[in-house]
Structures are given as C-alpha cells and as structure tokens.
C-alpha cells in the first residue's frame, strides 16, 4: 500500500496553494483506489440511510428531550408532515402507508456496510498517513487570514487553483475531518443509544446523551448536518469542475493543465 501511495501522488500535492509546480496537461493519479471505493460505498449507504431514515421519522414525526416521549407528552418540536400512523395527530386527516418494515431492515443493513467500510478507511487512513498528509491542514494555512481568503474565494464561487486539483484546501480539510471524526462517530453513537439491547450492555452510552429520546433527537440533527454537508459537497464539486472531479473520484486520474484554463475560453476536454 505504502509503495503505490508514494508512487501516485508527487510531493507537489502537499505544497501550499501559492506554489504552482505542476506541469501542463499531465495525467496523474489523484485518489487511491481505496479512497475511491470507500467513497462510493459510503455515498450509496448514505442515500439508503437517508431515505429509510426519513420513512422511519414519518411514523412518528415528533421529537422529545430526555428519556421518554410519546403522543401524551409535550414534544420539543414536531415536523409538520403527515404520519404513517393513526396514533400521531398531524391535522392532515389522512395516514400515509406504513413503510417501517423494509426501512428498518435497509437502515441497519446500510449502517453495517457503512460502518465496516468506515473502519477499513480509518485503518487505511492512519496506516498510510492519508489523514496526516491529505486531510490535516498545513500549519501555514491555519491563520485567520488564510481562513478568510479561503472563505471569500468559496463565497465568490471561484474556480479553484491548479494546486487544489491535487490537494484539498484548508476549509475542505477541516470539513472532511469534522464529518469523519465528529459527525460520523456521533451518528453511530446516537443510533446505538436508541437500541434497547445495546444500552442494556452499555447504559452510559444513552445516559451520557441525556436519555433515549435525546439520543433520537441528536441523531436527527446530526443527520441534518450530514445532509447539509452533502449538498455543499456536491455544489463545490460542480463549482470546481464536475467532470474532472467526478473522473478523479471514479477513475482516480486527474488531468491537470486544463483545470485552470479561464472559464468561458474553452470547454474542458474530457
């Protein structure tokens, strides 16, 4: 693994964005096979978890804080949608079809696949230095000035510089690390904290969160944060060049030398 990793990405991938040492129109490896495979498995799992999760929420679109919550207790908030159960008074006067059976099956199947894929990726990331080299921000970039420059260029939807085709900018690195090491662990934890069997073996997993209904509510908000990440992620891929970024994440190859061509002068050759 270490051999192929070092052969794929030249040293220039890790230099700050001000340095431009990339020769024109060269085909280079951008993402290792393991990163690409785990990325797409995670993407498929996430969509499955999102769809099945929404179906499960529809059966009781009320959220609570603490240990217990039901139609007789005051909710923290209620999503104004119809429900798939008669029990919930939604004011809509009709009840959606029950989809919880397959949704729950699919939710846990996709969760298993996502967690096992994530473990593989985590081991790979630590062993090969992928996290340290590609995701940990450079010390030089960790200044308010650096942040501000990056935020400003994102807000102007600027096409990224050539060096960024090789590497991740500082905001990207921080968001990816946040998703990988904060949101993903939190969504797994809050999910398990809703399992009566799991918490029987590890009661602290739910009491630390403030109770079973609190775990469910946090699970919901973390999933919203992940959806927000997905939307921004896809938007940024489009801004950076949908075809080149998709090609890099599918085939692993990045054709540089054309990325920085000013927009409008010529369409990117694919």
């Amino acid at each position, binding site marked *: 693994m270490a051999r192929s990793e070092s052969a794929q990405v030249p040293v220039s991938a890790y230099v700050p964005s001000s340095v431009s040492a990339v020769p024109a129109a060269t085909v280079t490896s951008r993402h290792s096979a393991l990163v690409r495979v785990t990325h797409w498995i995670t993407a498929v799992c996430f969509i499955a978890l999102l769809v099945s999760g929404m179906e499960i929420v529809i059966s009781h679109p009320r959220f609570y804080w603490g240990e217990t919550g039901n139609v007789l207790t005051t909710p923290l908030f209620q999503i104004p949608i119809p429900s798939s159960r*008669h029990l919930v008074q939604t004011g809509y006067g009709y009840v959606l079809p029950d989809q919880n059976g397959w949704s729950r099956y699919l939710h846990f199947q996709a969760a298993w696949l996502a967690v096992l894929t994530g473990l593989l990726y985590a081991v790979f990331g630590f062993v090969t230095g992928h996290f340290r080299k590609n995701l940990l921000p450079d010390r030089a970039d960790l200044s308010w000035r650096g942040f501000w420059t990056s935020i400003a260029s994102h807000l102007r939807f600027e096409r990224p510089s050539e060096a960024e085709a090789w590497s991740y900018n500082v905001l990207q690195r921080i968001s990816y690390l946040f998703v990988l090491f904060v949101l993903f662990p939190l969504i797994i934890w809050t999910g398990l904290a809703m399992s009566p069997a799991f918490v*029987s073996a590890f009661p602290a997993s739910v009491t630390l969160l403030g109770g079973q209904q609190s775990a469910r509510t946090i699970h919901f908000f973390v999933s919203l944060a992940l959806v927000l990440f997905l939307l921004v992620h896809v938007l940024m891929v489009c801004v950076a060049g949908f075809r080149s970024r998709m090609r890099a994440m599918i085939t692993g190859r990045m054709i540089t030398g054309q990325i920085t061509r000013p927009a409008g002068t010529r369409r990117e050759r694919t």
Partner: protein
Amino acid sequence: MTDLSRRKLIVTGLAATAGVSSLGVAAHLAQKYGLVPPDHGGIYGLGETLTYASQRLLTKHSLAREFPRSKISKPPLANEIAPPSDAFKHLQAGGFADWRLSVDGLVDRPASLSLAQLKSYPSRSQITMVQCEEGWSYIAEWIGVPLSHVLDVVGVQRQARYVVYFSIEPDWWESMDMVDALHPQTFLTYGMNGDELPVGNGGPLRMRVPRQLGYKSVKFLTHMTVTDSLKKFGKGLGSAAPEAGYAWYAGI
C-alpha cells in the same frame, strides 16, 4: 510492472480465498452458536444476521435499564389496538376468570395455567421502558412472574431453542431465543404501576421482553410453545413480524 501486477494478482487471489473461506467458517460457527436469526434469507439477511449475532455476543446476560419510581410515565400510554375479537370479549365479560395460558411443545409437563395460578408464583416487578419501533417510548412498572420460572415449572427439555408465544387475537404471535426466554427480566406480566394490567396495555396477560422493541411484547397472551425449530410455524420466518415485513429480532 508485470512483476508487480503478478504479485498483486497473487496477493489479491489469496486474500479473496481467505476471505471467502473465513466467511464460510463464520457462517458455520454462527449457525452452531445460535447467532443466525430465522429471517436471515433475502436481501437484508446479512445485516439482520450481523445485528442479531453481534447483539447476542454483547448482550447475553446484560440487564435492561431500570428506572426510579419517579420516572414512571404519567399517564401511561396505551397504544392503539384493533377492536378485540369475540373470544376476547367473552373472556372479558367473565372478568378473565376463564383466561388460560397453555404451555406445550418440548416440555415435560404441558400445562394450562389460570391467571390465579400465575399470580401464585413468585411475583417480581421492574420499572423499564417500552420503546416502539416508531420512535416513541414510555416507562412503567411491570408486575408478573419471570418466564424462566414458568419454564421451570413445566420442565423445558434440553433441545429447546425457542419459545413461540401467541395472542388470543388472530395473526399475532412472536418468538424469542432461550437467551431472552431465560433472561431474568422477561416476564409474563399481569400487573402495571401497582395495579391490574389494563386491557389497553395488554391485560390480562402480556409478555414483556424489555431488551427488545415493543412489538416483541405481545398482548393478550394465551399460548406458548417451546420448540427446537421455527420452521414449522407460519411461513418459517420466526414470527408474524417478518411476515409483515418487520425484523424478527428487535434489539435495535
């Protein structure tokens, strides 16, 4: 380059072979130690098996969380139930004096137990949470006799692997493995919050399996069978839940 490819090919081949054979060994061991749920077929079978197997290994002897009396939900929620059948209404009219729980299958002394007999056994109570798969929950005190005590009374045979239990209402039946059946918090429940068990909460007799979701806690219990195989019940998927598209194991 060709050397590298060949080496890669050999390594990949060896890894794949090792992977497939270890999967085979794992499947064999899982079957042997009762880690495969009855609804393991179909596209969701792998996820179900992983969930059931891992939770069985983790939670074999763990106790469901119990709560202080102050945490009991007031008023207790009675989930909506279909209008009771004529058979139920007939017994209800008689104050449930003729209610019977029959126990048969792989037992030495099949029995038909009245509520009075069940109440004559050592009574236990627990303050535990009912969690519905929909997302809501409530806490109540449940009073009853541990299922393990009744299983001792009827004399469970060695080859027993599951307890199948039926409601008086049609098409309402579930089953659990012996780990849950012999678990100290699995109750045949006849009381709630210091009183009789209300009909809305499953009275006069309800199974309580607090380490699983509410739908395993079948209401209006009239019949139990101890068995070594779930194949001969219904469609062979273990209970009515998988026949309606829900997982047999409801620990999550």
